[in-house]
């Protein structure tokens, strides 16, 4: 099998427990503590992916979250298939199975790589310039081809069975990043007694300490200090440690979003565990200690597998015990690469050359390298690399030899280390809306002015080196604790011995690199030339350059590329970097799963299900439910073998001939109470309430400010100062909100109290000629005889001992009652009534029957007959509007000319010529049978039903000037041709209202 690049000892992996894993159908071995990337490198595998546009072979560039190239899919099973994961962040477990992406048929041989051959024809933005002819060709050919080439991994195809959890937390100090700065900050804050949350995206705390080879802190090896510090923090009850947790977003008022990964690293996770947990942390103070990101160098062939960030190779060596190659060429503009070279050299990797882009390579690290006999070449650049699927050579040339690439000397190697210096990780600071400042000395953006309660510490604000980071972190922790009210906080100081960090850096393309494939954004295949082309074409804003070339828009969001891109654009435009501007840092820092944000919300838990007290009874009696807002409402109760049509016909007949029972509990109910209740009602509703006596009801209508109908419902006046208001099911919250809005902001002087009582009352409608007979024997303390209790009245009493508000109202046109009882008794009372109704053939009915019955009577449904553009007059409710009231909500708007203009749509009935033809709700109404589109319809059908009572279909419609069209024949659209229908009154049944008292 493949070569073994594992060191003999050292590293933080557990060599006693080998783990088997698969990558693209081949089996390999690694150890606990490995990432997929380190395990592959240990096996000598560098080729792991293909780039987005040119499908170039790509390897592993980095060792962390900044990785642009090594994207893989991890597959547990098809439902647990996760694309686009960074191999550098995937923890190894026994049996892990990973696949490469964006290649076909195989990683080593990818047809898409012809794009690379043809790349000169595909510069930045090429697709804006072509594929325009012929018209349909874009959709038919070009777009499918572009789509197929793009896209990286593939989406999972089966529903994800895993669970996601969600929690909210508060703390005094949230520390983001558990490197030396973060640990020191957490220690300072915790020792002051603050409630601390410390999170880090990696599996282990320690950050750069995890790759420390020779440093000591407090006289101990760094690794020992780290273990002790973490143990110490873990013992503190007020400290919460969250490894594998990424702070991905910084929101207003110091709310930080954390994504914790709980099972992704386990071979066989306990199914009871959630996969991930979202933390929404509201912190008094935040310390950002997010470190820095090493910059690649921009030179031809810098993307070949085996070309790596210098510091990453140190991490692989020291943390994972992996040598990334056997013979390395080092190219650098920063001292840090010397450290990598020295340590690799010590581990037995041959260093072919260290090319330093600076004219002089001095300072302790270069000197140490020279002392160790490493070939240091100052003022030297790299002009290219060789190899296909893995780097095999690197060409170096003296900087002075202007532009002569052929004079370059190719050095054989299987590894190229590069370092362009370090970019402070200011993402979260920027997300917090803090203002960045360009530090000329560091040549980097660092946190400037803060706008939230946060501070940065260590490398993420340009403070480099172990000793400096520890001190900076400790000071930040102290300051944060103090600011959070722990005045006794003091910063620890740490005796620390470590090699220097060094200086240097470059942010641009290397000399001689134009005209060749020198990549800036690896994943999106953006070259230095692409950026220059963009500026040539007039894209001068950095946001334009980004969008035109797609630099910085890949899944790594430009972590390794943004500074180089800025540098190149700055040179191309001849303007200093700070004048170029900066693209916005957007949430999230690294990608977060949809699942973690959706959380436990799914199916039943997606939205609360509201059910009535009678719901279970309805279920037991075979009801079919419909969703109305969050409510489940019984739509009809099919008997065995019945479809909806037949069930509804039977239910309708029962109500008209005998009695039906209907669960109206979902109706909105508001109790309006207080000395000014009647005045308040007068202002909110169009109706006049002053003369409505206690014990009487009235149909109420609410308008919006613009004069259009907002809601309706029966209102009962229980007493001088007390109204029982009902609203539509969907309108309950809206009406209450409108009432509160006016009460609190417009009429605070009114003494009125509003209480939502929707869920306090179960409402049982008993409707039909036998309804009184059914209730007679049950009701206590109320005379329900017609004379004592006429239509539209309300009385309080009891039913079988249960306190009851009994309304005599009808939405069916029949004699009817609505029984309101406390919700807890709803089912019991329902069953009592049902029982008492048996001799009368009482029949449960649902919303569909309710709709048919009310439509036969021409009663409107707000939201069906009305759509927010109907006035009371439009739907024939002018009679409800109080004529003499000084004001009510919407009154002024009703006076506008357009609201009374002739030709407004009005509510009418429609009877099709064919009495059995059922119109579609929403169908349009035309004046003539063969009007061709485009045409202006006269109106539309709002309700359409089969009426069992009338033995034909009926419809309600809103038609322009409808009330003047009685008897006219109009034409209604169907899926085929328009059908004729006659305009009629909207009241189809019992227009005199005789049935209200028929018993």
């Amino acid at each position: 099998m493949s070569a073994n690049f594992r060191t003999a000892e050292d590293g933080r992996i557990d060599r006693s427990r080998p783990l088997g894993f698969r990558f693209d159908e081949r089996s390999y071995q690694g150890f606990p503590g490995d990432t997929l990337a380190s395990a592959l490198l240990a096996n000598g595998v560098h080729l792991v992916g293909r780039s987005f546009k040119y499908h170039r072979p790509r390897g592993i560039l980095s060792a962390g979250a900044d990785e642009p190239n090594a994207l893989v899919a991890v597959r547990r099973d098809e439902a647990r298939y996760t694309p686009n994961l960074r191999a550098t962040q995937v923890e190894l477990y026994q049996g892990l199975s990973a696949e490469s992406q964006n290649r076909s048929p195989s990683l080593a041989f990818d047809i898409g790589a012809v794009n690379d051959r043809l790349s000169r024809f595909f510069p930045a933005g090429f697709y804006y310039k072509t594929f325009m002819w012929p018209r349909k060709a874009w959709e038919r050919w070009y777009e499918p081809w572009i789509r197929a080439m793009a896209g990286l991994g593939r989406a999972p195809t089966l529903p994800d069975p895993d669970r996601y959890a969600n929690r909210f937390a508060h703390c005094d100090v949230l520390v983001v990043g558990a490197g030396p700065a973060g640990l020191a900050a957490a220690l300072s804050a915790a020792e002051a007694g603050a409630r601390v949350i410390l999170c880090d995206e990696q599996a282990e705390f320690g950050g750069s300490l995890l790759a420390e080879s020779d440093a000591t802190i407090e006289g101990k090896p760094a690794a020992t200090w780290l273990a002790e510090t973490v143990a110490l923090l873990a013992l503190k009850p007020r400290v919460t440690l969250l490894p594998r947790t990424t702070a991905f977003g910084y929101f207003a008022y110091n709310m930080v979003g954390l994504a914790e990964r709980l099972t992704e690293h386990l071979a066989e996770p306990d199914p009871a565990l959630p996969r991930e947990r979202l933390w929404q942390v509201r912190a008094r103070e935040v310390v950002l200690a997010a470190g820095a990101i090493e910059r690649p160098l921009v030179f031809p062939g810098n993307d070949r597998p085996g070309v790596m960030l210098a510091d990453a190779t140190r991490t692989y060596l020291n943390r994972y015990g992996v040598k990334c190659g056997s013979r390395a060429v080092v190219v650098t503009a920063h001292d840090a690469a010397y450290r990598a070279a020295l340590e690799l050299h010590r581990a037995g990797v041959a260093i072919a050359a260290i090319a330093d882009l600076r004219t002089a390579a001095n300072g302790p690290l270069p000197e140490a390298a020279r002392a160790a006999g490493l070939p240091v070449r100052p003022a030297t650049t790299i002009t290219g690399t060789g190899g296909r699927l893995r780097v095999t050579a690197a060409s170096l040339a003296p900087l002075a030899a202007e532009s002569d690439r052929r004079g370059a000397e190719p050095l054989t190697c299987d590894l190229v280390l590069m370092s362009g210096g370090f970019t402070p990780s200011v993402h979260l600071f920027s997300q917090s809306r803090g203002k960045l400042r360009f530090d000329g000395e560091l040549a980097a953006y660092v946190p400037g002015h803060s706008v939230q309660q946060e501070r940065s510490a260590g490398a993420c604000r340009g403070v480099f080196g172990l000793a400096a980071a520890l001190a900076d972190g400790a000071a930040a922790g102290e300051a944060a604790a103090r600011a959070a009210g722990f005045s006794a906080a003091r910063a620890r100081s740490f005796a620390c011995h470590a090699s220097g960090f060094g200086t240097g850096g470059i942010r641009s393309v290397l000399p001689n690199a134009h005209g060749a494939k020198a990549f800036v954004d690896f994943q999106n295949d953006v070259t230095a030339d692409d950026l220059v082309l963009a500026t040539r074409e007039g894209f001068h804003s950095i946001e334009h350059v980004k969008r035109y070339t797609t630099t910085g828009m890949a899944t790594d969001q430009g972590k390794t590329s943004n500074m180089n891109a800025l540098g190149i654009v700055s040179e191309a435009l001849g303007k200093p970097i700070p004048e170029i501007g900066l693209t916005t840092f957007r949430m999230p820092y690294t990608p977060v799963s949809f699942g973690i944000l959706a959380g436990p919300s799914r199916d039943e838990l997606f939205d609360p299900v509201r059910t009535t007290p009678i719901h279970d009874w309805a279920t037991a009696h075979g009801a079919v439910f419909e969703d109305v807002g969050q409510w489940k409402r019984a739509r009809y109760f099919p008997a065995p073998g019945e479809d909806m049509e037949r069930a509804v016909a039977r239910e309708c007949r029962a109500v008209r001939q005998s009695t039906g029972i209907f669960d109206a509990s979902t109706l909105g109910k508001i109790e309006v109470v207080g000395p000014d209740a009647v005045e308040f009602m007068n202002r909110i509703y169009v109706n006049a309430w002053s003369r409505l006596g206690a014990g009487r009801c009235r149909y109420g209508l609410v308008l919006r400010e613009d004069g259009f109908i907002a809601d309706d419902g029966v209102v009962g006046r229980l007493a001088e100062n007390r109204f029982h208001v009902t609203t539509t099911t969907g309108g309950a919250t809206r009406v209450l909100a409108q009432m509160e809005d006016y009460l609190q902001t417009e009429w605070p002087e009114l003494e009125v109290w509003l209480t939502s009582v929707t869920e306090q009352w179960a409402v049982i409608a008993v409707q039909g000629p036998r309804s009184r007979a059914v209730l007679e024997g049950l009701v206590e303390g109320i005379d329900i005889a017609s004379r004592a209790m006429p239509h539209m009245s309300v009385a309080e009493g009891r039913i079988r001992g249960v306190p009851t508000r009994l309304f005599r109202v009808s939405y069916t046109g029949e004699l009817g009652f609505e029984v309101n009882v406390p919700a807890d008794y709803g089912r019991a009372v329902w069953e009592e009534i049902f029982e008492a109704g048996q001799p009368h053939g009482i029949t449960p009915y649902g919303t569909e029957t309710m709709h048919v019955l009310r439509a036969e009577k021409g009663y409107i449904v707000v939201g069906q007959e009305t759509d927010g553009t109907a006035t009371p007059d439009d739907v024939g409710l002018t009679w409800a509007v109080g004529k003499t009231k000084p004001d009510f909500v919407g009154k002024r708007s009703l006076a506008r000319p357009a609201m009374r203009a002739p030709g407004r749509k009005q509510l009418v009935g429609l009877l099709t010529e064919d009495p059995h033809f059922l119109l579609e709700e929403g169908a349009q109404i035309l004046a003539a049978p063969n009007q061709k589109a485009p045409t202006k319809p006269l109106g539309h059908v709002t309700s359409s039903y089969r009426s069992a009572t009338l033995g034909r279909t009926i419809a309600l419609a809103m038609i322009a000037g409808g009330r003047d069209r009685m008897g006219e024949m109009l034409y209604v659209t169907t899926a085929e041709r328009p059908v004729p229908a006659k305009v009629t009154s909207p009241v189809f049944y019992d227009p005199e209202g005789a049935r209200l008292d028929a018993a």
Partner: protein
Amino acid sequence: MQRFSALSLIRHSLGGHLGWQPQWRSPEPKAEYDAVIVGAGGHGLGAAYYLAKEHGMRNIAVLEKGWLGGGNTGRNTTIIRSNYLYDESAALYDHALKLWENLSRELNYNVMFSQRGVMMLAHTVHDVQIFKRHVHANRANGVDNEWLTAEQAKEFCPPLHIGPGLRYPVLGAALQRRGGTARHDAVAWGYARAADALGVDIIQNCEVTAIRRGTAGAVEAVETSRGAIRTRKIGVSAAGNTSVVMAMAGLRMPLESYPLQALVSEPVKPMFPCVAMSNTIHAYISQSDKGELVIGAGMDAYVSYSQHGALHIPAQTLEAICELFPMFRRMRMLRNWGGIVDVTPDRSPILAKTEVAGLYVNCGWGTGGFKATPGAAHLLAWTIAKDEPHPINAPFTIERFRDGVVIDEAAAAAVSH
């Protein structure tokens, strides 16, 4: 203007792409223009283009406080459709849709208009009634829209979960096949390049700070961060900032500005063939040519000019997305952002003359004006050039709110019973 074509691309490839010219100039503002457009979004740039191309006005400037296309044009989820309910709206949006169908060739810029179909899901009986009403009304208006059963909807969009088990099962869908998406940046750039070629000055980093009116009340000049510019005609097309700009002329607009958020996933291979929208549970999704799932999130509940959104808004959107597409839970959000949308009381735009002579306004497109870009631009140009509205935009006045002649597209969608 350098023509773009496959041939020119090949020719320039051989020259190492050194021969490409700037797609637009970066001119200094002149002292006076015949017309000034405020706001270099798609609408404003397009208006300048049509003014130059169809109305012969060449001395025009577009003033942009930031970079062109950086407003909502560059932030939206690019859903294009014209199946609006009312006759007036259908005419307006279909006017735009027809222009979209030839826009790439008109501008010689591939705006990647892709008629992959826009499907609106119905989850309740009420939704079904509303969408069927749309289907019938659109057909009468000559706008394509068809009804799909839940099974047909799934066939059209295979990742869609239609139930059972769904909290709000899919009962059907309205599909406009001519609807689709386009590349938003290309629309701004294409118009900018074409307008520039006709002599229009596009002046970026130039914020309008005041509007000067003469003694008779007519506009005379704008003051900007780059000096005063005289002009007799000002077309304001400033989206979320319209109220602020119009206040400079002393007009109070019937607008509220809200943050609206959107997000994209990491790119994946093509698997989502259309645009799917659910008004009821608030999910809007399509897949870009790059492979990202492009997802529209909701509007904040409160007015604000901050483009910084809160986490619960994208979280709620992803709840809905994962409910309808449960295999996407393991997909990952790559980028989230917001824009400020200007909303009218009836959710229909204002595209009109104003009571101030020489001042024209195009605004109120709210969450849905990208689809209107070519149409709005075309009609705004007409209105400015002729000092009167085109019949298509004649109903979209400011006065309709005073007079009660609203075109209430929101009411048509949002009321439940």
